[in-house]
């Protein structure tokens, strides 16, 4: 059996090496001052995908990224390491998206990719640290989700079930879940394998339309006619049939009011179960305390 694996990857500013100019006056990230990198935990997710591909020959890995045209770089990087194809979702109307609009957009893109067995992504991106996008996509696609995964231990193709080890407070737990599903992978999972020399040479000239200088259009056309795999598919909002009200700024209820340095003072923590009751209770409490709302 072969699997269709979707990996979500994001190009992020490298917040691991921040200088004094890393933040703007407005308290947002100064993207110009930081080099753009492959979000680290997405690389962990890619490795899990590549291991599944090793185990189930004939499987394909499709990488989906949303961002500026230059985010095609994460697709190339994925191709260098063993992914089969990539999609760049880029459009001016997608700008300013919060996690809700982002997960809607990515869910639409995943629907367009179609026929997926497993969707893998990093737990969270280092530019926002929300860890919301993966779970929201699962919700929007109506799929099971396993978060904080460290390793896909086994996958039973006939029963269409997967066994995953995930990190929990104070230890790990092993869970079984049905395919298809969304898995968010933690940074403690195996690091991603390196780029492969032959694949780097094969895919180094792969580009998305938006990256190509208009004057070089002919050159690229000839190149892609000869080697179709050098075209990285590019989708705009219309291509993924996105509702304009749910994307970009329009689809983003989040507003950053201020950014403050917070020193954690609370010494105690509470552990809640995943039951609806506990979750509801917490939401009520947060609403009452005007922490959210």
């Amino acid at each position: 059996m072969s699997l269709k694996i979707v990996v979500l990857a994001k190009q992020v500013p490298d917040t691991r090496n921040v200088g004094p100019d890393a933040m703007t006056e407005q308290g947002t990230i100064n993207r110009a001052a930081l080099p753009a990198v492959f979000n680290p935990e997405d690389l962990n997710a890619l490795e899990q995908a590549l291991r599944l591909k090793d185990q189930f020959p004939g499987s394909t890995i499709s990488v989906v990224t949303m961002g500026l045209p230059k985010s095609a770089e994460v697709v190339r990087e994925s191709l260098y390491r063993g992914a089969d194809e990539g999609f760049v979702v880029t459009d001016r109307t997608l700008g300013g998206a919060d996690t809700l609009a982002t997960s809607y957009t990515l869910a639409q893109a995943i629907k367009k990719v179609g026929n997926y067995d497993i969707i893998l992504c990093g737990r969270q991106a280092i530019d926002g640290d929300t860890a919301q996008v993966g779970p929201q996509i699962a919700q929007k696609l109506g799929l099971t989700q396993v978060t904080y995964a460290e390793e896909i231990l086994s996958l039973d193709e006939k029963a269409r079930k997967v066994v995953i080890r995930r990190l929990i407070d104070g230890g790990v737990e092993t869970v079984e879940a049905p395919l298809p599903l969304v898995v968010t992978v933690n940074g403690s999972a195996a690091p991603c394998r390196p780029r492969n020399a032959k694949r780097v040479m094969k895919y180094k000239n792969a580009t998305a339309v938006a990256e190509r200088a208009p004057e070089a259009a002919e050159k690229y056309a000839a190149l892609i006619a000869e080697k179709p795999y050098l075209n990285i598919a590019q989708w705009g909002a219309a291509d993924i049939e996105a509702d304009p009200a749910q994307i970009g700024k329009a689809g983003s209820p989040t507003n950053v009011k201020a950014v403050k340095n917070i020193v954690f003072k609370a010494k105690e923590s509470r552990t809640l179960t995943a039951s609806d009751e506990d979750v509801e209770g917490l939401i009520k409490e947060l609403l009452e305390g005007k922490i959210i709302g």
Partner: protein
Amino acid sequence: MANFYTDHPEIKFNLESSPLMNRIVELRENGFANEEKSDYAPADYADAIDNYNKVCELAGDIVSNVIAPNAEAVDAEGPHCENGRVRYASKTYENLEATVKAGLCGVTMPRRFGGLNFPVTAYTAINEMIAAGDAGFENIWSLQDCIETLYEFGDEDQRSRFVPRICAGETMSMDLTEPDAGSDLQRVMLKATYSEADKCWYLNGVKRFITNGDSDIHLVLARSEEGTKDGRGLSMFIYDKRDGGVDVRRIENKMGIHGSPTCELVYKNAKAELCGRRKFGLIKYVMALMNGARLGIAAQAVGISQASYDEALAYAKDRKQFNQAIINFPGVYEMLSNMKARLDAGRALLYQTARYVDIYKSLEDIERTRKLTDEEKAELKLYNKLASAGTPLTKGMNAEYSNINSYDSIQVHGGSGYMLEYACQRLYRDARITSIYEGTTQLQVVAALPHITTGTYTSMLDELEAAAVAPEFESLKARAKAMDDKFKAAIDYVKAAENNEFLDLCSRRLYEMAGNCVMAQLLIRDASANAELFGKSAKVYLNLAEAEVAKHYNFVKSLDVEAMESYRKA
């Protein structure tokens, strides 16, 4: 993130900044005729150079982020012998997995067998970086270049069976040394017997000091001609570990390169196949094997020199004494400048030699498919000669330089450098073998001597002298010319004695003069092309080399045939 390749622009310069590179790529790609057949073949020269750079960059990433961070643990753990097999240090498996997944295997092999079809020059760049990360692991990785010899002298059937396996990441070893056959390989006794019944050869005996001796595919030197005692009775065999019959009896306890298992092997009726022609084992194939390996050791030595310099420089900038960083003291910065100068000079010679090797080997490969033109034949002959002169010079000089540089690296560290916590002591232990294995420095001198007396080096120097340099380096060039003249005068003086033992006695001095003169010229050439990278080193190296040449000249001139008596039998 650290990347050994982009952090050391000198490597990139050496890889691509030579007019010979155009010819090398043209020959290697056979006029770009293979382009359609493979989806990773370059379309033209610029594309090929870009490929080398991109692959060096991914190798640089693995060196900085996997191999170098693992080096201390590998050094401490080392390999173990269990039930006749080698178990590497645990982190060695991580290194192997990274290099295999990255496809850094069969680097110089043709694409039709799954190789990268890179020139030796590009392979050398990857090799020196891996050595800088962990010189012991470099042994295991770089033994892949034994496949060159199998490719060159094996038949098409052997190539198609073995080359793809190396390109997929299997490892190799060259089983030459025996307890009584070290430098003198004519004494090899491992017995090869042909069985008419089984239509194959069987090997019996013992090999010693075999690097990576539990490898997947071995090239073995064995005595196929019963009753013979010299090199003409030896043939080369391929032993495939899948067939069994060779066990590891023990692993040596070494001073350095702990990551590399040095094995004693016992052959008990080990099935093997002949590679090439009978009786050509030592005189032709092992010589080819050793020349490739010597270039590899030169790259390993340059890698160790680089790592030694990097460690020393970082420490000298960080360490404060008398209220300032110690790099501000002349006693320290002179050491560091000299280290960098030796490193840059040795690297220039390494890549120059690699280019010579590339041109003649590519022409030889083309000769397997078609007749060469007269011009090509002349070119092959010339570069073969330059490669055979360059190889022992770059191996010996770089091995000695890596010893000096790693020694000085400890010195810059002071007392801390003597402690096992710092990498410089590992580099010092690792460097020590480079001037011993694959032929001691003394044997490199023997290999270089014919080129000293017949003028290969002096004609190299004449050609380098004739090239124009930027005005700011003209005065250096004049001083280098004066050094060359001293070298030539020393050769004439020694040859005039017409005494072979006297020539041998002076040969080490002449050899070092050849090295100093050639490297000075190369470094001036490089500084002229890129003053920012090499300007300082060219000036510093000239001071060093000029003093060395004067010293050797004075020494040689102080000797005559009668003076040999004081040296005989010590």
